[in-house]
């Protein structure tokens, strides 16, 4: 707390109070500067601490009851997509995944993980749009927590050695999909 009260009587003074000026500018300039910078911050983007780390392993069953474990897919790049039937970008990116799954067929493994959704709704979604790969059930959302999901859709690109190379928040752009997978192959 700055006490700007000066013990001066009378009103003939017209001098600049340097203290006020200094304190004012020390507060204002950095604050305004930071605000100006903050306009360019991406509110959605939170960098994943998992980048460059081994992808957390899991064994989950898909909608047909087949158990799939991530570690058994070692040697092949994996695209791991957390999604839900209620999210709009999930619908947007669906054709990208369908096309990519067809294009890369055996070279890349595409896996979907259900994020906080019910199986009937997911099945209805798959029936309407077609499934591009196995859809894994994540009971208790443990996989979502292990991958640090903030909200669907989020996509992880995992290389042949099982290391996470890229995380995409929201819909994956087709070009990004292709460039990333070509680099991983």
């Amino acid at each position, binding site marked *: *707390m700055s*006490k*700007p*009260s*000066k*013990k*001066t*009587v*009378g*009103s003939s*003074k*017209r*001098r*600049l*109070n*340097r203290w*006020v*000026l200094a304190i*004012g*500018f020390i507060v*204002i300039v950095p*604050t*305004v500067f*930071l*605000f*100006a*910078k*903050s*306009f360019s*911050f991406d*509110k959605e983007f*939170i*960098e994943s601490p998992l980048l460059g780390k081994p992808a957390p392993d899991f064994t989950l069953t898909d909608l047909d009851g087949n158990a799939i474990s991530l570690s058994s897919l070692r040697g092949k790049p994996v695209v791991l997509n957390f999604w839900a039937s*209620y*999210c*709009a970008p999930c619908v947007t990116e669906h054709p990208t995944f369908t096309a990519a799954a067809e294009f890369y067929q055996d070279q890349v493994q595409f896996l979907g993980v259900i994020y906080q959704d019910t199986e*009937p709704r997911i099945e209805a979604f798959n029936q309407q749009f077609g499934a591009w790969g196995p859809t894994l059930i994540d009971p208790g959302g443990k996989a979502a927590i292990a991958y640090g999901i903030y909200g669907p859709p989020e996509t992880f690109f995992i290389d042949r050695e099982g290391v996470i190379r890229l995380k995409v928040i929201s819909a994956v752009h087709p070009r990004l999909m292709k460039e990333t997978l070509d680099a991983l192959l």
Partner: protein
Amino acid sequence: MYSTLGQAFVLIALTCCAIGAPVGFAAGATRSEAGGKWVMRLAFGFAASMLAANLVMVAALLAHDFSVAYVAQVGSTATPTIITVVSLWSALEGSILLWGLILGGYIVAFAVLQRRGHRDYMAYALATALLIGAFFTFLIAGAANPFRAVPGPLLTEGPGPNPLLQNHLLMIIHPPMLYLGYVGMTIPFAMSVAALLRGQLGPTWLLPLRNWLLVALGFLSAGIMLGGWWAYEVLGWGGYWAWDPVENASFLPWLTGIAALHSAIVQQRRGSLKAWTVVLVLISFLLTILGTFLTRSGVVNSVHSFTQTPIGPMFLGFLAVLSIGVVVLLALRIDTLATEGRASGMASRETAFLLNNLALVSIMFTVLVGTLYPIAAEYLRDVKVSVGEPFFNRFSVPLFLVLILLMGVGPALPWGASDWRTTRRVLVRPLPGALVGLGIVFAIGARSVPALIAGALFGYALVVTTDQALRPTRLRLKKGEGLPTAFVESTKRIPRRLGGYIVHLGVLVTFLAVTISSSLQTSSEAALNPGDEATVGSYTLRYLKGETREASHVTKQAAVLEITKNGRVVRNLEPTLNFYPGRREPLSTPAVRTTVTHDLYVTLMNTSRDGSIGIRAIITPAVVWVWIGVFMMVIGTVICLIPGSTRKGGSSSAEATELSAAEA
């Protein structure tokens, strides 16, 4: 048509401001009477055209004229009429338009009420207010123009306002209240700037300044409380305050405003702290602009913020220019507001006031730093960090305890110098109250140390506050007057005194209610099939049936629950999940049974196809007293604004008698 008409009024308003502000400053500098009259006229012109522009917008909303951009954004033929009217402030552009109207209203009220006897200050103050008006009108005319004509073929239907607005009555009142508080800060600000420009701040200007500050703070308190209440009734998490950036933003000017109010009292009584009062008022206003910027630019993550818009940078520019202007003005003129320091002892009421200011400013600073730190961390460390409830509670709770301690100690201490014997006597006397307070909180079941301290401080401050509030009455009683006469007469002489202590009582009530409600919640969750029962505390909840209700703008899934307490059926509660078209996730509206002692709060978490539901039931004690306390603060504020009978005629000694009697 609406589009053209509306834009025309906005342009008139902008013209009034653009001419009025420079004319006003010039008139102030030259002490020109004719210039002063012109500023007044232009201020009225600004207010009138703002009113007209708002009416045009309401008419356009009611006419569902989707060629007007704002109507196309928030209008819908399916929305009920009342919601259509209030959708005026349901989105950014409309809310700024309303902002303009409120500012116009304040300026007119100020100009009319203070027109006599303040010629020295008036032109400067109006010019400053119009300068602020110019910025907002500029936004309305340009970047946030709600009257923009929608190009292309005419639409016949719109999406309707934000579902959160449609969900609850409180959301209709909360924003205007908050705006009244925010915008109201413009008047004390303008008055302080006028005082600085004039180089003096006499008691004739200080008193109205204090009153306008009170008006703004009253509305701000009500607005903040209604926001919390709304969150409690609608958001379904069972709390009312989450230290969300936007909540914090409304809290900051409240804190410094309260500090300014107290510092103004010292200035009035002792002649000191003049410059400090002005600094606090200026900061309070800057903080309202900061809050508006935070809410409307989307630079911080918050539930309440409007979506990101291009007006963010403009607001920042305004904030920057304004703060620099204020600092330069302060640096140039602050020394003209000399302190006439009068001797005071350490254990005096002045010290308590200073410490009160210190605690309030420290809370403000803590909240400000915590709210803005994530931006700094993102820039400097390139990492997103959160500063949340645990952080804010850790630092603000002790400071709030200090404030309540001061609320007890301060009024008990005499002004000026005092000897230690007196000090000890007045401070020891209310101690039994502290014991009672401690006992009550302990008996209710609180065991945490802060809660117990809070209880003791509450009891202590309560004793002092009621004692002080009734002291003039008691003195009159001793002189032999009857109780009603004594009370009415002493209140009539200085309503401010009673009002102030009612505000303090309100603060104490809210403080205790917050303490109890936050430390003694019990909750339980259950999955129920029709006919199943769940218990929480002494309540039994029986799931009767699920219902689906269609309304014009919403589909509600309701769960009908029969509530039994101690074997007696109390009532049914119907928490709902509301599905709005165009929104995927439902909003959960809790059902609340409010009683004097506690609330039963039930939310519907989910519904399944097989007919089962998931519910969460929370029992929170004393919640209703949080609102009641704030309501008391508002009532007290209104009483403070009643002019005392001493102001008329020459009996100024009556107030002095009354005041000095109160010190005894």
